[in-house]
């Protein structure tokens, strides 16, 4: 072992080609979905929690809150919005710190994978689980609690854009808030209280207009209140719009606030995202 040079490795001459960016992103999405589905806790927590909440609340409260609108219907729209927030904001805000702490992110950074592919994988996972989650909630609600599915194309369209804008804002905020957690375990300590408080003040568990007005004003600063309101316009009769704080469903304002949160979330992601833990430099 005294020689210091050996024949050099063949330099990149006849290299093959790896899959293109789109294919890499799809592969990454599939891997993320597989990981999610195999982790029993996330499936139970994310998919099961909203269904269980609907079953419990529907069994406790059955009165009408307005002509032709039962509390159950009101609550279900809130839980669909909550479900969308859970798969995006909570899911990412809890799991990304764990992966960062374990060094999974650092390992990806050491490969030729383009950075955006990793984010695309997370987004594909959120979208797939979000669709499955919403379908499950709708199926349960239609079968057991007389929820009627939207009957016009316009309502489906509203459902679509409220869900897309809401999930986008919550996904970006989830990625952004993941950088606040310093260890794997603190992710859920950071995210869960935020999510829970938002649910209480945004009109998920209680009829929004029955909350103190200062609480309504605080809630109006965050996306969940607007997601709930947008979804009420999809599933509740048009006449219920008069019961909203603004006297209508205010869809323009829903779009504006959710759009603003997309921008805020994106800026926070771009400025704060870390691939490694603090102690890792």
């Amino acid at each position: 072992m005294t020689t210091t040079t050996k024949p050099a490795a063949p330099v990149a001459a006849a290299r093959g080609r790896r899959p293109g960016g789109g294919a890499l992103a799809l592969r990454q999405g599939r891997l993320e979905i597989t990981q999610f589905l195999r982790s029993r806790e996330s499936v139970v927590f994310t998919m099961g929690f909203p269904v269980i909440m609907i079953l419990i609340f529907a069994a406790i409260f059955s009165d009408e809150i307005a002509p032709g609108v039962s509390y159950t219907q009101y609550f279900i729209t809130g839980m669909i919005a909550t479900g969308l927030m859970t798969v995006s904001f909570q899911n990412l805000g809890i799991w990304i710190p764990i992966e960062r702490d374990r060094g999974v992110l650092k390992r990806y950074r050491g490969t030729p994978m383009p950075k955006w592919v990793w984010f695309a994988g997370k987004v594909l996972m959120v979208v797939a689980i979000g669709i499955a989650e919403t379908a499950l909630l709708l199926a349960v609600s239609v079968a057991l609690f007389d929820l009627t599915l939207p009957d016009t194309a316009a309502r489906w369209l509203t459902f679509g854009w409220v869900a897309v804008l809401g999930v986008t804002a919550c996904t970006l905020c989830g990625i952004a808030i993941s950088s606040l957690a310093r260890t794997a375990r603190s992710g859920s300590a950071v995210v869960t209280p935020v999510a829970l408080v938002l649910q209480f003040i945004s009109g998920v568990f209680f009829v929004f207009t029955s909350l103190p007005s200062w609480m309504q004003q605080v809630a109006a600063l965050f996306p969940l209140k607007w997601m709930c309101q947008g979804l009420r316009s999809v599933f509740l009769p048009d006449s219920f719009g008069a019961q909203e704080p603004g006297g209508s469903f205010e869809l323009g304002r829903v779009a504006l606030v959710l759009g603003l949160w997309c921008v805020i979330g994106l800026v926070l992601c771009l400025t704060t995202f870390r691939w490694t833990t603090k102690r890792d430099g």
Partner: protein
Amino acid sequence: MDDELAISVRGLRKAYGDNLAVAGVDLDVHRGEVFALLGPNGAGKTTTVEILEGYRRRDAGEVRVLGADPAHPDSGWRSRVGIVLQGTGEFDELTVAEVVRHFAGFYPDADDPEKVIERVGLGAKARARTHTLSGGQKRRLDVALGIVGRPELLFLDEPTTGFDPEARREFWDLIRDLSAAGTTIVLTTHYLDEAEALADRVGVIAAGRVVEVAPPNRLGNRQEALATVSWRTPEGTPELAETATPTALVAELAARFGGEVPGLTVTRPTLEDVYLRMIGH
């Protein structure tokens, strides 16, 4: 820049606050060489290597790795560099085969995943979820992910920590195989026997500086160092002499005792002796 050099470092410096972790490192690693970086914890080994791997920014100095500045890694460069970090990146819910196959997809000229799994000795575990692997088996998976892209240059940060002696020997054979195929290998290690068994040259790093670079058998002028001859007098008292001519001394002792010399040993400083002296013990 010399094409024979895989790595060239001049005046590398990196501080964390007031703590100067790397205080002016100069280093050359030839193509095809196995280079071991040896040093105590906190000597600046990992910081140096992580700068070379493109994970950390340097404060000052000139660094070329495979002809490029690792501070700006692009995906072409990443696909030529393999990295095995210290204890990173567990994918609990996935199987060994799934993880290796997924990472193979990031590289333009990846090796056959099944072959790589066999090569690191995980053939029997290919279908096992990674969280069921032992510490040593997880390390083998780390190595598999480091080599699956067929790198020209492979970094190994304390690769055999947690290996039993047999696994360690198998790993050494793997490194020799890779080296024989022309891969340049840079490894950091605490184990002197590992450096001695594998490395063409050893760099000793202490307090942020490279103290010496030499083939392991010549480190600290080991070959020229005085030999220690020890024996017992007829009364049983141990005697000890340091000499440049141990053979002559042994012949003289043999003549004096008229045959066997009681308790005779002849030793030279071990790599460990030399190393401990260098790092200031």
